[in-house]
């Protein structure tokens, strides 16, 4: 139980760290002077002290939506697979619920974008809706495929099972699922090549466009939400597709887990450095690949059993 709560707190704490880490790594790779990896915390602290400016055109949604964007993600944190062998975990929550909770968060984020009557917000929401619509099926299929390989539909239990028995006999579908999930990780968190979190150019913005009119603590909440989302995806990837290192003693296991998270972040950074942002209408090609792989994974598992 302590490990469980500790993991949650830890994940919450390192959430702002990971995006900053990616940013710093990228800058280093590009031979720039890197930003501090603590930048995320600094931004948060700065925003907490600012006043909130609410748009004149905005409605009650703007005042409520930020909380509703964050809270489903916080709830998901409780449902993640354990990082330490023998720790308490919520075994039963399945992929559909997790996807649903993420979608709930996205839903309010999109409404938030539309609320301020700005063209940017609408544009961001529209693009986000487009991407989310394609991400959702891939995500459900992927997680289900993995859960079924693990022999349990509950994601937490699946993580444990995978760690115990790595599905060597289903390597093909496992690999497909892993590729698909990694693409989803990039797409859902608005990383290059799907979205560029660092730009404020209307041609390229997705996530940033939606929150252009959000300020102060609201912005802090939204930013936290997006980093929590990254942590969720990263830790799902770590537990489901890199299911090792649970058997060590608790501190070591947690350390291994953290390493995995940073490794994933580093991979994302590498991809970001090496690719250009895709045009919006090229994004479906990428997501299409994810969907195809997810579908293939499920079909391979179902029909061929491989």
């Amino acid at each position, binding site marked *: 139980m302590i490990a469980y709560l500790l993991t949650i707190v830890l994940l919450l704490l390192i959430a702002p760290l990971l995006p900053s880490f990616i940013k710093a790594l990228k800058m280093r790779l590009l031979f720039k002077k890197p930003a501090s990896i603590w930048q995320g915390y600094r931004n948060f602290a700065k925003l907490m002290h600012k006043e909130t400016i609410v748009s004149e055109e905005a409605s009650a949604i703007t005042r409520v939506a930020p*909380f509703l964007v964050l809270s489903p993600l916080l709830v998901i944190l409780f449902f993640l697979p354990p990082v330490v062998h023998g720790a308490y975990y919520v075994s039963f929550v399945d992929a559909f*619920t997790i996807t649903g909770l993420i979608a709930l968060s996205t839903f309010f984020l999109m409404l938030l974008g539309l609320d301020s009557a700005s*063209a940017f917000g609408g544009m961001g929401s529209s693009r986000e809706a487009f991407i989310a619509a394609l*991400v959702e099926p891939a995500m459900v299929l992927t997680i289900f495929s993995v859960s079924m390989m693990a022999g349990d539909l509950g994601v937490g239990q699946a993580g444990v099972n995978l760690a115990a028995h790595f599905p060597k006999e289903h390597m093909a579908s496992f690999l497909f699922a892993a590729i698909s999930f990694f693409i989803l990780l990039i797409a859902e968190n608005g990383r290059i090549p799907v979205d560029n979190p660092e730009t404020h150019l209307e041609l390229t913005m997705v996530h940033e466009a939606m929150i252009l009119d959000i300020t102060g603590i609201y912005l802090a909440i939204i930013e936290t939400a997006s980093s929590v989302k990254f942590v969720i995806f990263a830790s799902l990837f770590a537990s489901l597709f890199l299911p090792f290192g649970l058997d060590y003693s608790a501190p070591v296991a947690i350390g291994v887990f953290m390493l995995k998270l940073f490794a994933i972040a580093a991979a994302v950074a590498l991809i970001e450095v090496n690719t250009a942002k895709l045009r919006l209408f090229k994004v*479906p090609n990428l997501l299409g690949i994810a969907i195809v792989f997810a579908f293939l994974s499920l079909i391979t598992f179902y*029909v061929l059993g491989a």
Partner: protein
Amino acid sequence: MFQFDTLSMVFTALIVLGSIPNLFYSQGYLPHIERKAHYLLHYFTFIASMIGVVVAANALSFLLFWELMSLTSWQLILTEAKSKKTINAARFYFFMTHFGFVFLLLFFLIVTNGDLEMGFSAMHGVASAFAYPTLLFFFLVLGFLSKAGAVPLHVWLPYAHPEAPSPVSALMSGVMLKVAIYGMFRFLFDVLYPWPLEWGVLILVIGSLSALIGVLYALSEHDIKALLANHSIENIGIILIGFGMGMIFDSMHLKVLSSFAFIAAIFHTFNHMSFKSLLFMGAGSVLHQTHTKNIEKYGGLIKRMPVTALTFLLASVSISALPPTNGFLSEWMIFQSMLGSSHLDNTSLKLAIPFAVFALAMTGGLAIACFVKAYGITFLGLHRSTNAKHAHEVNFLMRTGMLLMAAVVISLMLFTPWYIGQFDAALVGLGHTSVYARLFPEGIWQLHSAGMHGGVVSPLILLGALLGVTALLMFGYKALRVKERIHRTWSCGYRTGARTQYSATGFAGPIRRFFGWLYKPDEHFHKESIAGHGSKFSDSHYEVHVKPLFETTLYDSVGKAANFMSYWVYRLSHFEQTRYAAMIFNLMLTVLFSYRIFAHEFSWATLLLEGTVMIISIKVLIIGEKR
């Protein structure tokens, strides 16, 4: 005449739950209807006939109430018939529903041997003695699914529902479609049991297609009620996916999973009733205030119509299947039932089920996009027309209706175990295994899947957690006592206005573009350019319309064929004006010749001879020579 078993009572409850809030809403809406007597008469008969259908105990009363239901709903669509569009929609609706009735009629005639006062259970014997049960199944499917609006018999829905007065749209979409689902339950279980595997697969495929096609066309729609109507197609598809899974499991002798899938289907039926009625009521209130169904003319209504906006939001979240709402729970159950199938050993299933999973998942994603669009464009941002600017909250009765329906939605969310218990009882009444104990082994807090290694969801805990965390966050925010400032939205230095907002067309743009191969949109783009510059223009207009693929291919060609036929028949008939004697001559010849051949002694040679003689005689005597 009537029967009141659990299934009937469950569906009666559905109708009652759907109608009571509607009654309030309808009363509030009444002052705006010109033909009050007409409306009220048909409205109440409509509700009564729906109840009549679900409690009917023999074919005669079932068909009577069924047709009465169609008749009254048709008249209700015509209540405010002002435009050609309404009239055409009503006609199309009535024709389609009659078309379905034809198949139902045939079904009943075959399974009753013409004795229409036979009870349903007695029909089972007749049906099993019939040599072609699949024929019966097809009749049943065509009959009920044309009413329910499943692909490819769905085309009338987006026309008919928007044209009816809003309370009626809510009733039709929310409740009437479910009566067809009742029919599926009643007659597949009572009359056509057991089912071959193929039937279930067929229903599953129809359901998947309906779900996908419904949501895709909903996205491209700008008419808010047509959008909702398209979503009804989607949700019927989802219900049918559950239903199909139930049938498949039953034919594979997996009784527990089968009951589970059927319960999911009934649960979704209830959920769809609740949120779709609520959405139509909300749309009706908006329409009532803005006098337009065009979503592009709305905007910012949340400030003017808070109650409508709040209830609409609740329904939107629910229909998008987002946790922890009731819509999420039923879709979750359907998902779980599909994944209980991993160990089924049948290749067609192994291909069909992942496809259905995919369709359902895809539907979910697109539905979210669609409802963000519907809600965001309607209620958020700035008003896009004067009417939207001067909108007010609707009157007390209409608000009451919406709030009551919202209460139904919430009750479905909160009292899921109780509802599921009732559905379980209904299925037990139909001879299925009870699964309630397997679904709630640890009390009402957790809903388990009936499958092996199935997932678990705890709606109440989820709801509690979400509410708790949100409340905590908000409390924290309040505790910080942040200074707030109100300021205009920044829009690159220009003045923020309604015209700089994203439109619904624009919102759906990327998706429309992605599915362009399916939509084949009809775009109208007009631009007044200045001095021949391509990029400088004083005025521009962009419109896009999507005509459903099925309509342009299937329905239009049927219409053309009918026209073609009637044209030729008409031309042929006009021979009788001048050549009646020759007509009668040839007729006599044919009849006597045929009597001679068929009644006395048959041989192919003489039949051929008859044909030849008749052709020559018709050519010479009737058609004559070309002038």
